[in-house]
């Protein structure tokens, strides 16, 4: 898939704060900053730890496991790029390490998504440059 075919909004992958997150996603790794002082894992990426205000960080690889906190099914087109996707889901996933993120659940029909469902990260290479962090139902062995 080339960038000219992909019409949906793209994240700011060149922002210096979040570039390591997107570079890792492109390698199909879920990485976030852990505070070397207090251990808090922060997301979205930022210069300072919001718990202890420490400026340094250690990028760690996360388990990729989480659960669905809740989700909505979009049946209205707020942005024409999603016209063909209706109805599509948007979910809030809580990771085992603590952070929560907005994402899509892939690999199952919308009707099968449930609150509390165990999920695992599923990387979606939407352009040559950008990989989005999505989630799919967790396999039994994960």
């Amino acid at each position: 898939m080339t960038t000219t075919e992909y019409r949906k909004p793209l994240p700011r992958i060149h922002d210096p704060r979040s570039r390591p997150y997107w570079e890792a996603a492109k390698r199909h790794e879920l990485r976030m900053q852990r505070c070397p002082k207090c251990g808090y894992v922060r997301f979205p990426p930022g210069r300072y730890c919001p718990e202890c205000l420490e400026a340094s960080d250690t990028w760690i690889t996360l388990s990729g496991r989480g659960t669905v906190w809740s989700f909505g099914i979009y049946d209205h087109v707020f942005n024409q790029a999603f016209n063909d996707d209706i109805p599509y889901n948007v979910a809030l996933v809580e990771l085992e390490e603590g952070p929560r993120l907005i994402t899509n659940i892939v690999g199952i029909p919308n009707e099968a998504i449930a609150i509390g469902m165990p999920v695992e990260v599923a990387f979606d290479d939407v352009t040559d440059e950008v990989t989005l962090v999505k989630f799919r139902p967790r396999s039994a062995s994960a």
Partner: protein
Amino acid sequence: MGVAELQNMRDKVAIVGVGTTSQGIFPEKDGNDLAVDGFKLALADCGLTKDDIDGLITCKSYGGLGIDTQIAPMLGMNPRYSATLDYGTCNFSLHLAAAVIMAGFSDVVACVYGTNQRSNRNPFGATGADTDAFGFFNIAGPASMALRRHMAMYGTTEEQMSTIAVTFRKHASLNPIAYMKTPITKEDYLGSRYIVAPLHLFDMCLITDGGACLIVTSAERSHDLQKPPVYIMGMAESTGLRYLENDQQLMRPYIEKVAEQVYPAAGVTQKDIDVLFIQDPTSVWPLQMLEWYGFCGIGEGGSFIQDGRIDLSGELPLNTNGGQLSESYMWGWLHIPEAVRQLRGEAGPRQVQGAEVAQYCSTMGFQKAASTILRR
């Protein structure tokens, strides 16, 4: 927690004038024009002139408008104090006005808001946030997640939720400035399309143009004006600004901290509230806030609102103006003018008989909460 200090504010500040323009579609005016229209109506309501106003608190509006440095020149004013808030709901503006008056920065403050986001076609779509990539648009997104979670945890049903939209529409049918006056039924609600399931079309607020203004002053100054003053008994705020870093953020547990302050500040309890207003960008707001403010237990909102309880003639009339779901979307700015009119006995066919105490509860998105208790 500072409740003692908030108690010191009780009955010290009053709303003396309210102005609300027609609500609807006004392509010939921009948001600042509509703010000026609201200001003129509020002046006429209280009998003051613009030279009496020495404080101006404006509210940012769609298209980069609503800034004090834009609006004061339009009003031909050089007030002693001015400020612009980056968000609406009116409670935050009113609380700042009260603090400004108590601190002595100003004697008489005008709080204004105007928007033409309907005519100017605010798309409520992409915001530039990274989450746009997932199609996460509009307040309906997080609201749908909150409602789905409420349904899963407490058994709240779509049928129960229909009561909010149906009741507010009934109230709007009695309100001359309401944009949507045609009654709807539970069947209309259940048959309407989803915007973001489980939120139906009728759970969503309107998109409209309009203007509104409050004139606020000290209790001493309020007595000899055209209309009886409406006193601020209590006010309180709380935030959940860390947003999704907070546990259960979309259920908005931080609202309970407002309730813990605002009733002691005002010296009343929930039972004393004769008419209640809850800002309603979606019907999830009334559901959550009835619970966090303690009108019912947590999780009981869906059953609490049944059997006419929140109807004009019920035990807790809610949003007698029709709210943002049916009157107009003015970022929460129309609920307080309606509360003032109820307490003055000016609400006509919507009048709650003997209304003495009113409360308004609002939030800025999912991140800030505020409430004001008013009395005549």
